[in-house]
C-alpha cells in the first residue's frame, strides 16, 4: 500500500519537476513546482515526517511559492512570454552536466541495500524515528531536539530571517 503511494507520489514529483523546467509560462512552472512540493509532502508522510510534511506545505507551498507567484504577478510578465529556454549548446551542456551528476549520484547511491547498510552503523537503526513519534507525538518528536540540542541554531535562524526581512525590504524599496 505504502509502496504504491510512494511510487505514485514519486511519479508526480518527477513529472512536476520536468514540467517546471519545460514550461514557458512562469506561472505554469510555479504550479508544477507546487505539485512537486505537495508530492514531496506526501512522501514525507510516508517517511514518518508528519510535522515536516505539514511544514512543507505551510512554508513552501503556502508561503514561499505564494511569494513567488506574487512577484511574478507584480512584475506583470503578463500572458505572453518570451521562450527563455536556452539553445543547443547550453542544452548539450545541461544534459552533460546533469547526466554527469546523475551518474555520480547513481554510482554513489546505486547499490541500494548495501549503501544503506554502509551508512547505518551511525544510526539508531530502522524505525528509530517511528518509535520516537509513537512516544512523543509527531510534533513533540521533532520539538525535543530542536529546542534542546539545537536551540542556538534555531535562534540564529530567527536572526537570519530578521536580517532577510530587513534586506528584502531595503532591496525592494530602493532603485538600484
Amino acid at each position, binding site marked *: 500500500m*505504502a*509502496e504504491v503511494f510512494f*511510487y505514485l507520489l514519486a511519479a508526480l*514529483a518527477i513529472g512536476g519537476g520536468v514540467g517546471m523546467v519545460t514550461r514557458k509560462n512562469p506561472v505554469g512552472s510555479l504550479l508544477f*513546482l507546487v505539485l512537486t512540493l505537495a508530492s514531496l509532502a506526501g512522501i514525507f508522510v510516508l517517511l514518518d515526517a508528519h510535522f*515536516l510534511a505539514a511544514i512543507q506545505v505551510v512554508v513552501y507551498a503556502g508561503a514561499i511559492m505564494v511569494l513567488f507567484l506574487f512577484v511574478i504577478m507584480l512584475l506583470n510578465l503578463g500572458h505572453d512570454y518570451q521562450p527563455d529556454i536556452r539553445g543547443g549548446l547550453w542544452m548539450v551542456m545541461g544534459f552533460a552536466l546533469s547526466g554527469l551528476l546523475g551518474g555520480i549520484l547513481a554510482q554513489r547511491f546505486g547499490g541500494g541495500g548495501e549503501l544503506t547498510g554502509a*551508512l547505518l552503523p551511525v544510526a539508531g537503526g530502522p524505525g528509530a524515528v*517511528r518509535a520516537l513519534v509513537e512516544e512523543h507525538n509527531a510534533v513533540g518528536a521533532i520539538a525535543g531536539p530542536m529546542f534542546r540540542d539545537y536551540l542556538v541554531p534555531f535562534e540564529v535562524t530567527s536572526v537570519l530571517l530578521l536580517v532577510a526581512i530587513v534586506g528584502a525590504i531595503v532591496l525592494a524599496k530602493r532603485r538600484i
Partner: protein
Amino acid sequence: MMLAESLVLSAILFVIGTFGVLVRRNAIIIFLCIELQLNAVNLAFVALSQYVGIEGQVFVFFVMTVAAAEAAVGLALIIAIFRHYETVNVDQFNLLRS
C-alpha cells in the same frame, strides 16, 4: 523503509533542478529550480533520518527557514533588477556592460 527509492528520487529531482538552472534564462524560474534542488536534498535528509535519527528532520526545518530567507532576499533582488532592466532574463543582467 523506502530508503533507496527515496534517495534515487532525491537524486532525480536534484538533477532536474540542476538542468533547469542551466538551461533557463528566466531568473524567477532559476530560483524555482534552486528551490527544487533544496527540496531534493530535504528529501534525502528525511529519508535518511528514519535510520539515523530525528536530527535529520531538524536540519530540514533549518533548510526550509534558510530557503524562506533566501526566497525573500532573492525575490527582492529580482524586483530591484527588474525595475532597472525591465526584464528578468539573466543574460541581460550585465551590470558592467550597461
